[in-house]
């Protein structure tokens, strides 16, 4: 610290400058997922503080990583107790991976490909009837398309998928008196870049011409695209309140404007230069018009997230209740969210017209948004959500050994958006018109009705702590959570919970606490499956809506056996059983986490610590391959299959700090190791010959993540203020995940993916070394 302005103020701060060199093998994007590690000279941070001694003003400047992608600047200032201002800018990169995009225009809302390529691809298209009896059998046309695609991928530059958040803000707070305050804050965040998004499609194929519908196979098609991200979010928050020791009350208003500059994404289908209506063919048993060759379209369009605006007004208050040593706090909030982006046309595929759009009476231009308005009565959603939140907390200590806490929360999400029924839709941009939203009414051309989802969630809880003896506190708790829903296949759920715990502190050096909670969630009005209201299978219940029995145990032990040793142990167990007697869905989940942490300080110059965390979880689900051998009965026990997923994680952390020369030379090292493994146990006890092909359990290899990190820092204090040092970082990350495929899977997939091109932006493993030296100055 140093006095400035003739002693009126004190200047303090610190600065760290480093010079470093990195060596990265593998994915630089994963290594720098949220950071920017540059070679050369880096100003790590700069902090300058001016604190008034005899004047009531202050100024605080904080700078981190200037001129890098993860730069941060903040300036605060003001008069103590009177007013304060803040300006800040924060940049956060999010780097994903490098991939190959065969379409041009990454980062824009229009991805294109040369027409010649589309023509060459189309010239080698093999339609359904011509594929013969085995659609997966090699053929010259598929081989030609594969050769074109492979060549294209080999000669296309790679694309880095990444985006960056840049957030700037200004806030000011003003105290009218010691108790009356007001504030205003404005932030603006720009989020720009790209990330992968996949658009898929498929062709149906009758494996057995004239055979049952269930025998149809699918040939998949699609392209992984670069989704442009051009978001801008502006938030204004203003408020004022009275803050006294005995009570406080305030009101605040928040306006959020979210703007997406690229709210659509057009993309060329690499495999088609002309759009043609889908077609059926002789021998097909599924006779809906145009059910098969539906992928013959040239261009698709995605609707990305729409722009929106929201308003929130919140009233808060709190009052002390000295007679019972208590306090009551409440918050009431009202919110509105609006979204009214104009609807896109049903499709850009002009081939969806005429005879294959039976729901349309007369000619209609399917590529015109006016057709959406004419056929649904709406040109936008009129998206309108109103929220009401009420939260109340009451806590008191009516007598010394007793503490009572009661909470109640009400959250109402009322979606007033228009409910719209469309006559149908062109999914996946395909040359085909669907007249039902995959529900059992589809055959009646019921159209596709949208359903604005609304719900009300309420929580109430009561916790009573009682100091039974001075070292022992026991806790009893109970709670209720209720959900009421609209336009969903479930009406409501109620969950009642009860539990208890203790905290035992026999001596100052030992604290041991435990807690157990039991809860049972019951379900009201879950629509049975295979109905218009619930098109899912009979017996399938979503785990977040299902009947649930929950057991939860937490324990914590902290010991200081001797002055130089600290030991902490935590243990958590959670078991959920879902769905009662319903056979399908997630049936149970179980998780266990244990951790131990030891710190040892044998002397003033040495500190060691070590920690170990082990986590285990298991999720058990059951499903059944859908059959239609008997009308109205789709799920037979012979087709039941189970999948148990085991997630295991072990994390080790160790470190040592040694004052090699006390006050001068310090060695600081740490090592972290993380190993996670996901294993799958997919089973079907029935003979494969007795089950549908889709019901045969398949072995999935485990997924492994391994991470190691070594940090070494040797610092030398040249003076009390000046420190120099060297630092070294080693990171190694290895991901083995069988789902991360090459960019092109032609002929290797179960569904003949000859026409499905990915980017291959999924390689994340890396090994990195960073060595550097630094100078740190504190003043």
């Amino acid at each position, binding site marked *: 610290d140093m006095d400035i302005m003739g002693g009126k103020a004190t200047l303090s701060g610190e600065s760290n400058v480093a010079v470093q060199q990195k060596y990265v093998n593998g994915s630089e994007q994963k290594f720098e997922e949220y950071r920017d590690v540059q070679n050369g000279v880096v100003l790590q941070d700069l902090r300058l503080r001016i604190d008034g001694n005899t004047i009531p003003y202050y100024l605080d400047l904080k700078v981190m990583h200037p001129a890098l992608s993860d730069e941060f600047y903040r300036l605060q200032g003001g008069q103590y107790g009177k007013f304060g201002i803040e300006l800040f800018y924060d940049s956060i990169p999010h780097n994903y991976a490098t991939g190959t995009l065969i379409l041009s225009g990454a980062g824009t809302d229009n991805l294109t490909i040369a027409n010649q390529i589309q023509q060459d691809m189309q010239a080698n298209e093999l339609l359904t009837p011509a594929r013969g009896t085995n659609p997966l059998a090699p053929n010259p046309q598929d081989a030609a398309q594969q050769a074109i695609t492979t060549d294209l991928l080999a000669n296309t530059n790679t694309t880095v998928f990444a985006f960056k958040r840049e957030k700037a803000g200004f806030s000011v707070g003003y105290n009218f008196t010691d108790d009356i305050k007001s504030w205003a804050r404005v932030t603006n965040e720009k989020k720009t870049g790209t990330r992968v998004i996949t658009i898929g499609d498929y062709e149906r194929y009758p494996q057995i011409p004239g055979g049952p519908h269930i025998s149809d196979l699918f040939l998949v098609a699609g392209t992984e695209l670069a989704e442009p991200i051009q978001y801008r979010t502006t938030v204004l928050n203003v408020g004022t309140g009275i803050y006294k020791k005995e009570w406080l009350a305030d009101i605040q208003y928040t306006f959020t404007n979210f703007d997406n500059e690229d709210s659509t994404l057009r993309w060329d289908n690499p495999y088609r230069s002309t759009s043609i209506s889908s077609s059926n063919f002789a021998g097909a048993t599924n006779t809906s018009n145009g059910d098969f060759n539906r992928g013959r379209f040239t261009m698709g369009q995605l609707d990305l997230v729409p722009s929106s605006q929201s308003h929130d007004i919140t009233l808060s208050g709190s009052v*002390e209740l000295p007679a019972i040593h208590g306090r009551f706090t409440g918050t009431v909030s009202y919110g509105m969210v609006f979204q009214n982006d104009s609807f896109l046309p049903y499709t850009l595929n002009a081939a969806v017209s005429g005879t294959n759009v039976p729901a349309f009476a007369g000619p209609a231009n399917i590529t015109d948004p006016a057709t959406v308005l004419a056929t649904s009565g709406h040109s936008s959603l009129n998206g309108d*959500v109103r929220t009401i939140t009420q939260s109340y907390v009451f806590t008191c200590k009516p007598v010394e050994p007793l503490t009572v806490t009661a909470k109640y929360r009400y*959250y109402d999400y009322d979606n007033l958006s228009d409910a719209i029924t469309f006559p149908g839709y062109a999914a996946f941009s395909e040359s085909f018109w669907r007249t039902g939203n995959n529900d059992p009414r589809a055959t009646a051309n019921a159209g596709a009705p949208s359903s604005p989802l609304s719900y009300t969630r309420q929580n109430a809880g009561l916790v009573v702590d009682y100091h039974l003896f001075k070292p022992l506190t026991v806790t009893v708790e109970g709670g209720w959570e209720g959900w009421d829903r609209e336009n969903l296949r479930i009406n409501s759920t109620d969950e009642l919970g009860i539990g208890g715990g203790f905290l035992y502190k026999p001596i100052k050096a030992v604290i041991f606490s435990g807690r157990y909670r039991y809860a049972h969630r019951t379900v009201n009005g879950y629509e049975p499956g295979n109905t218009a209201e619930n098109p899912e299978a009979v017996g399938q219940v979503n785990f977040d809506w299902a009947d649930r029995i929950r057991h939860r145990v937490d324990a914590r032990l902290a010991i200081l056996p001797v002055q130089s040793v600290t030991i902490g142990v935590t243990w958590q167990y959670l078991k959920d059983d879902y769905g009662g007697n319903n056979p399908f*869905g997630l049936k149970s989940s179980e998780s266990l986490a244990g951790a131990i942490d030891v710190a040892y300080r044998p002397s003033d110059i040495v500190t060691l610590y070590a920690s170990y965390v082990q986590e285990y979880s298991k999720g058990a689900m059951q*499903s059944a391959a859908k059959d239609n051998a008997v009308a109205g009965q789709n*799920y037979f026990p012979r087709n039941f299959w189970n999948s148990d997923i085991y997630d295991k994680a072990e994390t080790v952390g160790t470190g040592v700090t040694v004052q090699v020369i006390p006050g001068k030379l310090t060695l600081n090292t740490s090592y972290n190791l993380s190993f996670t493994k996901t294993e799958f146990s997919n089973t079907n006890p029935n003979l494969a010959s007795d089950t549908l092909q889709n019901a045969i359990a398949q072995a999935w290899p485990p997924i492994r993540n391994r991470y190691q990190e070594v940090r070494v820092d040797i610092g030398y204090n040249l003076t009390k203020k000046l420190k120099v040092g060297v630092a070294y970082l080693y990171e190694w990350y290895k991901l083995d995940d069988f789902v991360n495929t090459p960019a092109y899977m032609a002929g290797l997939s179960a569904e003949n993916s000859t026409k499905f091109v990915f980017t291959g932006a999924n390689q994340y493993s890396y090994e990195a070394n960073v060595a550097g030296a630094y100078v740190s100055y504190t003043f």
Partner: protein
Amino acid sequence: LLLVGAMAFATDGSYVGSEKCKECHPDLAKAFSTNIHAKAGEYGFKDAGCESCHGPASGHVEAGDTAAIINPAKTDYEAVSASCLKCHSKDKKQVLWHGSIHESQQISCVACHKIHGGNDRLLANKLENELCWSCHLDVRADMFKRSKHPMRDSSTPTTEGKMTCSSCHNPHGAMSEKLIDARSFNDKCYECHAEKRAPLLWEHSPVKEECTTCHSAHGSSHNKMLVTMVPRLCQQCHMQGRHQTAALATNSVLVFNRGCLNCHPMVHGSNHPSGAILQR
């Protein structure tokens, strides 16, 4: 009299004033001069001083005995917190301390705050996240997993700390569960993921009800911070069409790459008239 806050401690003796303390502790007093507590008078606590937290010091001054002065770090948690709250109950961020999970675990203010320290918000550790993780080791473990928020520390040029625990939680107590400092889980997520807030034509119910149905907020062994792997995550709820009910081999387009999202990318909802099955 320097009474502010000191009533919480049952100590004998009388107040001597902070100037007396400076006589024997000049370095401490100098360092404390830039501490926010040294400016308490500007905030309406005009009589605040050393004895506001350390209690009447006359006995300590007379005998020089360290046992004759209160050290909040070695004092009963309730007394310490009560002392702090004598002033800080005016702060909205602290009004829910009583009855909060940290209070019920008998954690006092000075377990996390070092009042004489120089760190931001007087935290006991320069890095807020490290302070929290010293007890919440399982959350620390999540930081080394496959997907996570940018929360590793920011202490060196090679670290990435952009979020802190208090970006989402209020450790002093909150209306929402898990000490979430917002009206709901989703409202907290929308603060950074504003694009997920708006109502859409085709909704996916868990998205609007609770993000944590599918996402693990601290970190995950799975991609995109998912609670489990796609397609199994989707299959746990969906058995409508045939392809959703297949046991699936690893060479199926329903499994590899983005799994179900290969064809249904708009899993958070779609506003496209033809996006009824979250595919456009």
